[in-house]
């Protein structure tokens, strides 16, 4: 993509790509390189607190957890010998397979809707909101003030038999009996989770769009691109990696959620997280719970790696807005 005439902003990639590349970018990736150099110059000790925190509260528990997953299960206790039985049990259990499928469906649906809705909102906030930007950003942030459970119950009062939607439709004479399919299924879980995670997605994507100057879009228009092409060849390539990261973020939290499915999911909305919670707390089979958790974690890591691989193949993983 050609740089704008003022040279304020350039799109650079680490290697030639289908839409953008060094040739079109003018071949001067100073902005990107300069930032990398700056990053390297930062004192290492600045990262020490975060490193220690992660080691103590993430890596160490994970190591202990990994050990649990290969120990022999007792009732609320573990013992030797080491065994892979927990993994075998977790994989071969037909209930786990059903619940894993439910988790994937809920996670993919929630993340897809969040990106599909969040991206245009972020774009509007960045380029079209004008004086409304701060007010809308505040409202988006304010929507996160309500507690998780309150929002779940709010959706119940919206979607329930006596809820706003059913009452409204009955009052208007459009239906005689309340629609029972609105609640206690996967759809209700997805609706509530989208409500919970959409503000995060909007804020993340808005932050990713902030460095994108108006000039970049103007340059595209000057070169004859219409709105669709502008989105396809300028906005989407730049936003591909942030969108993927936001997708994975929402997918993991949604697929692993075990609270919302219990309140809104009904029998078909039960997820693997509910099973893991039960294995830990009710059944007292810690190795099985740990093994199931690790299998989920493995699935998430694979998903992230696969997405990153695709982005790399499409040269969309290292786009920078050079200044």
């Amino acid at each position, binding site marked *: 993509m050609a740089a704008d005439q003022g040279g304020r902003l350039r799109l650079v990639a680490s290697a030639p790509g289908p839409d953008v590349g060094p040739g079109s970018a003018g071949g001067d990736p100073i902005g990107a390189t300069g930032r990398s150099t700056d990053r390297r110059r930062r004192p290492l000790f600045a990262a020490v607190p975060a490193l220690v925190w992660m080691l103590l509260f993430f890596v160490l528990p994970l*190591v202990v957890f990994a050990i649990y997953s290969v120990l022999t299960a007792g009732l609320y206790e573990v*013992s*030797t010998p080491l065994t892979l039985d927990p993994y075998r049990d977790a994989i071969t259990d037909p209930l786990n397979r059903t619940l894993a499928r439910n988790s994937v469906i809920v996670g993919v649906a929630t993340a897809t809707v969040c990106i599909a809705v969040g991206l245009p909102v972020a774009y509007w906030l960045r380029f079209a909101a004008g004086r409304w930007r701060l007010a809308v950003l505040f409202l988006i942030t304010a929507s996160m003030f309500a507690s998780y459970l309150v929002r779940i119950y709010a959706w119940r009062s919206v979607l329930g038999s006596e809820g706003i939607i059913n009452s409204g439709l009955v009052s208007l004479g459009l239906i005689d009996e309340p629609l029972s399919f609105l609640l206690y299924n996967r759809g209700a879980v997805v609706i509530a989770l989208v409500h919970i995670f959409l503000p995060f997605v909007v804020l993340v994507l808005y932050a990713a769009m902030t460095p994108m100057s108006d000039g970049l879009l103007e340059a595209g228009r000057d070169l004859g691109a219409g709105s669709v092409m502008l989105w396809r060849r300028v906005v989407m390539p730049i936003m591909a990696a942030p969108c993927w990261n936001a997708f994975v973020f929402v997918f993991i939290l949604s697929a692993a959620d075990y609270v919302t499915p219990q309140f809104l999911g009904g029998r078909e909305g039960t997820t693997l997280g509910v099973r893991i919670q039960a294995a830990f707390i009710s059944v*007292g089979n810690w190795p099985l719970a740990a093994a199931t958790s690790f299998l989920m974690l493995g699935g998430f890591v694979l998903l992230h790696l696969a997405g990153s691989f695709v982005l790399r193949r499409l040269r969309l993983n290292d786009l920078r807005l050079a200044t």
Partner: protein
Amino acid sequence: MNHPMPRPSLWPTTAGLTRREIMRRAGLTVMGLGAAPSILAACGDDDDDAGSGNTSGGSAETSGTPAGTSGTAATTATTAGTTASTEGGAGGATGAINYLSWEGYDLPVESIEAFKSATGISINASYIANHDEIQAKITAGGDAAGYDLITYYQGYKPLYTELDILTPLDESKLPNLEGMLPFWGSAEQGFWIDDDGTRTGVPFTWGSIGLTYNSEETPELPSWYDLLDPSFKGRVGMVDDPAGNLALACKILSLKTNELPKDQMADVVELLEQFAAQTKGVAPSFGDMTSQLVSGEIVACFHGWAAMNSFAAAEGLTTVKTNLPSEGSHSFCDAYAIPPTTTNPDAAHAWINQSLDPTTNAEAAIYLVGAVTVADAVEQLDEATKALYPYEDLETLLEQAPLAINAPTESDEFVTFPEWLDAWQQIKAGV
């Protein structure tokens, strides 16, 4: 009356390693010993440590001071019933009690406030959303939290005995035991008193499970099977209480929960599947199921109890009632107990003793919409609470709705509790 509790062979513990031991050793490992090898090596030589729960339990019993000397407890209360608690007194016990159980079982009632003022005893409450959180938290680091007081549902007695969660109580510090109603003061099936006479719990509240329904939407249902009528499709509530649902299903099928042959589990599962199919989903708690009643999502509950009438009324729905169907049901009783993690057993004993004060026991029943375990408390109940249970003929009620015991933790012959929990997960998910 003492019915020895069946004690099937239980899970082996000699090679077991508690989670807090794992964490302790992991901590040491981080300090330079090398993580995995040490933790794994520890698993094989843990015999001595596995018994430490019992040892600390013993110390909980012996470290207290003799009861009945102070006479300071609850001196500000004014009823005759309260006098009984001053005789036992707090024995000079004071300080904070780390409490782990249901919200409400820490008894926010007037006479308890007076007791706390008189003794200086206070409560640090950790509330649970699920009974299983108690054993999960005690076994997974309760020492650090120093829990002093828990409660247990009688069906969990075998499990808690197996997990060494219950320490012997010092009856000399519980003089109010004398005032209990005969049934609740007995060693009924070993729920609170072991075969050797060791007391592990003090029942303070109980109730009977029934069919709770909205009388505005449906007439009284004389049989549990009435809930299977097609007109109730999607309008029945069911709560995520595996032990309670198993007990109820066994009662309906005239089976014994703790002696359920493995080849008959399919019958129980099939029955519960039928009821579950009438629901839109399994509610995570009784409170949530009450909300579903109030919002009109459901009109009847497969597994409710009389307190839900009041809970619903508090939310504006005054037409909720509970009846006992012809097949019967089961009763539940919660008892205070002191876990081995305690650091203030004296105060915990004083608290338990106070819970048996007639005034406190009556106030607790009114607050919890439950039943009393103390004889003199009956007359102190208000009319509504007193009418919930037939105190003049408890025997008949407890025959129709006996106290249930959970499935054993291990057995070759009978369905075990872990097996049942697995089956319940499948029923919940409709698989």
